[in-house]
């Protein structure tokens, strides 16, 4: 038993994560020191790589887009007390959904293909999360287990389809043909060029705008709709939900579907925005890091955007860093991300408790 941890809200959502990141960096600095490099220089290189140039910022935000989608997916499920760790599989299926639309319909103009492809990505992701939700409601199989298994199922299904059904004939690599230009979601530098604004080239595309809109809609859903109220009631107290006449089963399935649709949107960034074709493993771990993003962002869209940008910086800055410091390998960057996850998520109480104590003392001396 311990004293309840009460912090002012602003400190809870801003100060705690910032401190977590600082502590993570200090520990990571020790690792860098251990391999004989200067942690200060490494930090400078990392931040410079992520934010030092227009191109760097573009890449950072491009990675952040993926993290926003998967972070939102985890957060929405989390509000209903569900732990959706199938973001990978749902994103993979989202890619399949988008690709099928594009392969069939990319002779049509963009204003038909793109909306349909985006909806396809959401629908396939939604179905891939809905099924585990349905299984939990009807058969009592826990979503944590089933969503993990569905990650593998999605991966194998897409391999099979790429090799045997929708792959480019005569190609050695398992991927589809490149979609027509009408199925390409414009890069931000292209979109802004149309208005006469020039920004450096990067893979950052209009998906980033979609991610921001999705964040707003999730905020609206959770805190300003009746469905969101029902979702939160189920998440906080299933017995109160039953009393209130809210069907836990229905909410579980609906929430999983919304969560899956959000994860499916990752494919819009990767497949429609950047790759222009379906290929293997484009989801490359974003689904899992989404869990950390949601945790760090306290399952609030604003927090998720900030956490996603932080992870975007780590990805982009880390890539630059490993160019400049060959001894800091890609794996080191993964380790640093891991430390951030560790301190922001798992060891959160480590920072929160002393801070709550400090605040209590501060308030006392004022009062």
């Amino acid at each position, binding site marked *: *038993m*311990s*004293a309840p941890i*009460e912090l002012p809200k602003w400190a809870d959502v801003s100060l705690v994560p910032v401190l977590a990141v600082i502590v993570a960096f200090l520990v990571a600095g020790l690792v860098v020191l251990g391999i004989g490099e200067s942690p200060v220089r490494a930090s400078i290189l990392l931040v410079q790589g992520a934010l030092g140039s227009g191109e760097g910022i573009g890449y950072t935000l491009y990675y952040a887009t993926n993290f926003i989608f998967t972070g939102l997916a985890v957060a929405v499920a989390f509000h209903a007390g569900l732990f959706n760790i199938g973001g990978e599989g749902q994103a993979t299926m989202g890619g399949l959904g988008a690709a099928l639309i594009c392969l069939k319909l990319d002779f049509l103009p963009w204003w038909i293909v793109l909306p349909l492809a985006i909806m396809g990505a959401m629908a396939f992701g939604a179905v891939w999360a809905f099924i585990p939700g349905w299984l939990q409601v009807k058969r009592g199989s826990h979503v944590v287990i089933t969503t993990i298994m569905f990650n593998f199922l999605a991966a194998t299904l897409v391999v099979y389809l790429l090799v045997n059904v929708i792959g480019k004939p005569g190609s050695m690599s398992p991927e589809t043909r490149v979609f027509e230009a009408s199925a390409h979601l414009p890069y931000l530098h292209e979109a802004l060029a149309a208005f006469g604004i020039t920004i450096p080239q990067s893979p950052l595309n209009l998906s980033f705008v979609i991610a921001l809109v999705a964040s707003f809609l999730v905020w609206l859903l959770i*805190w*300003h*709709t*009746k*469905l*969101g*109220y*029902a979702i*939160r*009631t189920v998440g*906080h*107290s299933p*017995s*109160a939900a*039953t*009393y*209130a*006449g*809210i*069907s836990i089963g229905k909410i579980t399935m609906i929430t999983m579907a919304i969560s899956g649709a959000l994860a499916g949107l990752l494919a819009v960034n990767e497949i429609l925005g950047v790759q222009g074709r379906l290929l293997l493993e484009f989801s490359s771990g974003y689904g899992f890091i989404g869990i950390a993003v949601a945790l760090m962002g306290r399952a609030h869209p604003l927090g998720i955007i900030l956490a996603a940008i932080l992870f975007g910086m780590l990805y982009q800055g880390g890539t630059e860093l490993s160019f400049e410091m060959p001894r800091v390998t890609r794996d080191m960057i993964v380790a640093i991300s891991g430390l951030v996850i560790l301190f922001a998520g798992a060891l959160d109480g480590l920072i929160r408790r002393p801070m709550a104590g400090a605040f*209590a003392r501060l*308030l*006392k001396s004022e*009062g």
Partner: protein
Amino acid sequence: MAGQAPAISLSSIDKRFGEVRANKDVNLTVARGSVHGIVGENGAGKSTLMSILYGFYEADRGEIRINGNLVRIRSPKEAIANGIGMVHQHFMLVEPLSVIENVMLGAEGGAMLAKGEAKMRAALAKLSADYGLAIDPDAIVGELPVGLQQRVEILKALVRGAEILILDEPTAVLTPDEAEQLFALLHALAGQGKTIVLITHKLHEIMAVTDHVSVMRRGEMVATLETAATSPAELADRMVGRHVLLDVSKGPAHPGAVRLTVENLVIRDAHGSLKVKNINFSLRAGEILGLAGVAGNGQSELLEALAGIIQPTLGRILLDGDDLALTAPTPADRRTHGVLHIPEDRQRMGLVSAFSAAESMILGFQSEVAFGSGPMLSTEAVRAHTETQMEAYDIRPRDPSLKTSKFSGGNQQKIVLAREIEHHPKVLLVGQPTRGVDVGAIEFIHKRLIALRDAGVAILLVSVELDEIMSLSDRIIVMCGGVITGERTPETTNDRDLGLLMAGVTERAA
């Protein structure tokens, strides 16, 4: 024991939670070897004060002296080191483990259990002999009756060397018989020099068991009296700060048409065991039907079945002659048909403790157009509605955005009450309306229920408090073991008669 330093001496204790000053300059002295009661309305600061003594919170200001020595208690661990033990209202026990394993928990004495267990067994045996605390050390805690589970909690504290024992609402979960046994035990402990602090709402317990009593009101210690020199009426007045009517005044009932009819109802729980065995009764508009019984004799299941939360195995529930299983099968449907429900367990069902008061105020009615058109939920509308209700039902503090869990038991119950009553019930199902609720709020709740009755609402009142059943009901039915063992009117019965029915001694036998 004259000349000795008091066991507990608190001076000028101050504690603030944000805007709320939960303890204001509180002083308390408890003599060694005495039973000291602390009474006060919910939210008066009793629990906060005891939490400070037990190290859950640290006071902002003030001194704690134990046996005359100035101490600083920053955690329950330090409290235990200072010889303070606490028995919580909700037991902190691991149900699948045995008594000895529970008592050892956290005091295993090394990595291997055998040695510690042998020592603990000896200690338990000694305590049992000293205080007559008979209990089988190898019994599984989850299988013990509640009274014995509480005894395990007391043993846990004593084994850890507690000289001061704090009990928080210890009788809330006990039968009258178990409560008697507890009081005898407390006397025995005090007789051997232990100091007992008893937090309770129930004034007759204070009168029965304590030597001294301290009254708290709105964070302040307003009086410390010798129990023998005071009366329940005086205590109640001091708790509330004005004159309280302990007896409910009500006019005769004017029952109207039959609203709710229960026919041959049989309910099995999730494990398939029979909880309600073929019961029949009817409820008229404008009457309060009291359902008495010892907790766990099928009343909870009956209430939940009537509210649509669980489905009966057999039998029918009719509202104005229509079978509710067909016309309104779900809790949401029942609500729209005017069957409203104040659940027995407000923490688990009636409210969402993590929600704001405003959000809890619409639980079950969240889909109403008044709270937002279409799929949207209007925060402003919900807030405005809550502000009105808080005013009408005197819910304090009047802050719709405050977390539900921050309200006292009485004010939480008022949130539920306000919510259900304001939706114009035809039939109101009321479960334990005043459990864990302070005197002032009890009076308020009782008045509201009688006003509703007079307005023609059919009320089913389920309560384990016989006083409540006797003073509110127009008719009384008693349940034991899932069957109705008798029906009475308050004029033709008394506690003893009802007690016999509650124990399953039916009319013919009696």
